[in-house]
């Protein structure tokens, strides 16, 4: 049992952002959420994290509605890594990773050996051993994301939600980061823009278009030339030439905008 969304909808400013989305996760697998800008990826992740509550529908964790669980209890199960986190506070890597222990600690009690152990393990898993005393503001973008993942791991979650974690990273760090995430023994949901990265590292994919589910399945089921044309309005050439025979997408150009009635959202 894990996170489960049933027919969730959410609107903002009079616009329907998500419209009846279902999502069932496979425990221990990595699910990629794809879709153009404004398709509702971030909103879906925030609903799954319990940071927003759905206007209709239900998000459950092990069968219990998220809204009925205590925030602290949810944070011990579900960890979130944002697109880009920053702070003005002068923190070290160990301080930031230590924040992951917040949901595990009771007020007026000192930290326990468990906390220190969890921080050490998280640093190790994220490949940051030896960096504990470095200052946050001296880290590169890739290192910061790694630290945020280590912080999430220090929460000792079973579900990990990442919202476009590879934005602003160079290609080596993108691959590093997603390889790290995919290798974790957690039930992971990651919102992504890059279709090739999604093909390489995700077990399952969910494609959103204007707040609705357009497709779901394994990468080779979902990432087809037709779907890319339909959702992104881009011509592409898809071949099974990626690692382990996964689909590889070569982009050929944009397609003309759809008929005016559909009113494609301008991106940029």
């Amino acid at each position: 049992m894990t996170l489960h969304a049933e027919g969730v909808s959410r609107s903002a400013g009079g616009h329907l952002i998500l419209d009846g989305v279902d999502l069932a996760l496979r425990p221990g697998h990595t699910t990629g959420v794809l879709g153009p800008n404004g398709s509702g990826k971030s909103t879906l992740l925030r609903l799954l994290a319990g940071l927003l509550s759905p206007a209709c529908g239900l998000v459950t964790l092990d069968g219990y509605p998220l809204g009925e669980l205590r925030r602290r209890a949810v944070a011990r199960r579900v960890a979130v890594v944002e697109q880009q986190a920053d702070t003005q506070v002068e923190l070290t890597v160990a301080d930031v990773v230590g924040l992951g222990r917040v949901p595990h600690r009771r007020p007026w009690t000192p930290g326990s050996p468990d906390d220190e152990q969890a921080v050490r393990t998280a640093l190790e898993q994220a490949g940051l051993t030896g960096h504990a005393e470095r200052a946050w503001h001296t880290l590169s973008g890739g290192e910061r994301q790694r630290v945020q993942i280590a912080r999430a791991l220090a929460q000792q979650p079973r579900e990990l939600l990442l919202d476009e974690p590879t934005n602003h990273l160079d290609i080596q760090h993108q691959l590093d980061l997603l390889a790290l995430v995919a290798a974790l023994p957690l039930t992971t949901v990651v919102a992504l823009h890059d279709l090739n990265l999604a093909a390489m590292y995700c077990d399952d994919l969910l494609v959103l278009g204007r707040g609705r589910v357009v497709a779901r399945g394994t990468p080779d089921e979902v990432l087809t030339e037709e779907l890319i044309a339909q959702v992104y309005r881009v011509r592409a050439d898809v071949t099974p030439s990626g690692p382990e025979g996964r689909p590889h997408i070569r982009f050929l150009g944009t397609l003309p905008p759809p008929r005016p009635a559909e009113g494609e959202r301008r991106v940029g």
Partner: protein
Amino acid sequence: MSHGIRPATRGGLLWGAGLAVLCASIALTVTIGPASIGVGDVWSTIAARLGWGTSDLTRLREEIVWNLRLPRVLLAAVCGAGLAVCGAVMQSLLRNPLADPFVLGVSSGASTGAVVVVVLGAGGGALSVSGGAFLGAVCSFALVLLLSHTLGGTPDRVVLSGVAAMQLFSALTSFVVMTGADAETTRGVLFWLLGSLGGAGWTDVWLCLAVLLAVLVVCLGYCRTLDAFAFGQDAAASLGVSVARTRLVLLCATALLTGALVSTAGAIGFVGLVLPHAARALTGPGHGRLLPACALTGAVFLVWADTLARTVLDPQEVPVGVVTSLVGVPAFVLVLYRTRRGVRSAS
């Protein structure tokens, strides 16, 4: 400056040293003043009053120590500690390095309340100056909460609402003083507005100390929650923090403490803004260490600032708020300069 995991013994040593400095400061500053009194006299008076022995001091000198100097110095310590803790909590909670007890408008509301009582005689004698000040503080804070909630309740809205309330109540204070007060009252009011610990009695000390300790215990219970705000309120929420409840509890606690302090000692500026930054340079950003450090450094700072205020132009007294700003600004600049790498990376 190093952060992170530190041996507990070192922390213990730091607190021991801090407490020792505070006690020594209190003992020393009590001896400073027109009547010459030694540290030994202070101890024998305190011991005699607590029933641990007899003092060989004259009755008058004992009175000076016990009823004039000691309450004043202790009140200075409590006010310094309280204002610094309030500042630290608000800076973290609102993610704004400029937040301090004045930003919530509490101080200016208190000033207006006091002025209305002094100048207009509101309450017909039933309401003391500090009573009026406390009412003013509560009204102003309620206004700020209401306004910021209507505007969306985000941290920047709270700060903006506080600034608006501050301006409004400052204007009201000026208006009341200009239209209703004679020259003598104006002088007295001005003195109070800049902060004064003169006339402190034991009741003031106990009352403020009780509020300080209660608020400190609450804030320490929230210290890891405050740490979680480092990356913003969404990040805090994803770490299991109930953001709205935390903000309400801590804003109310700090407003209560500020109200109590300002209604007793006037609007002493600068301590709440600056001391948290200085304390952060000493302990790092973790609130479990930062809040006690703020309390200690704030207490020591204001004890000495008030001693300066009452001795530098003796027999005249300078409002302590003037001293805190004159001494504090250079210290502030120094602290900011020494921690500038953090600021640079954020720009």
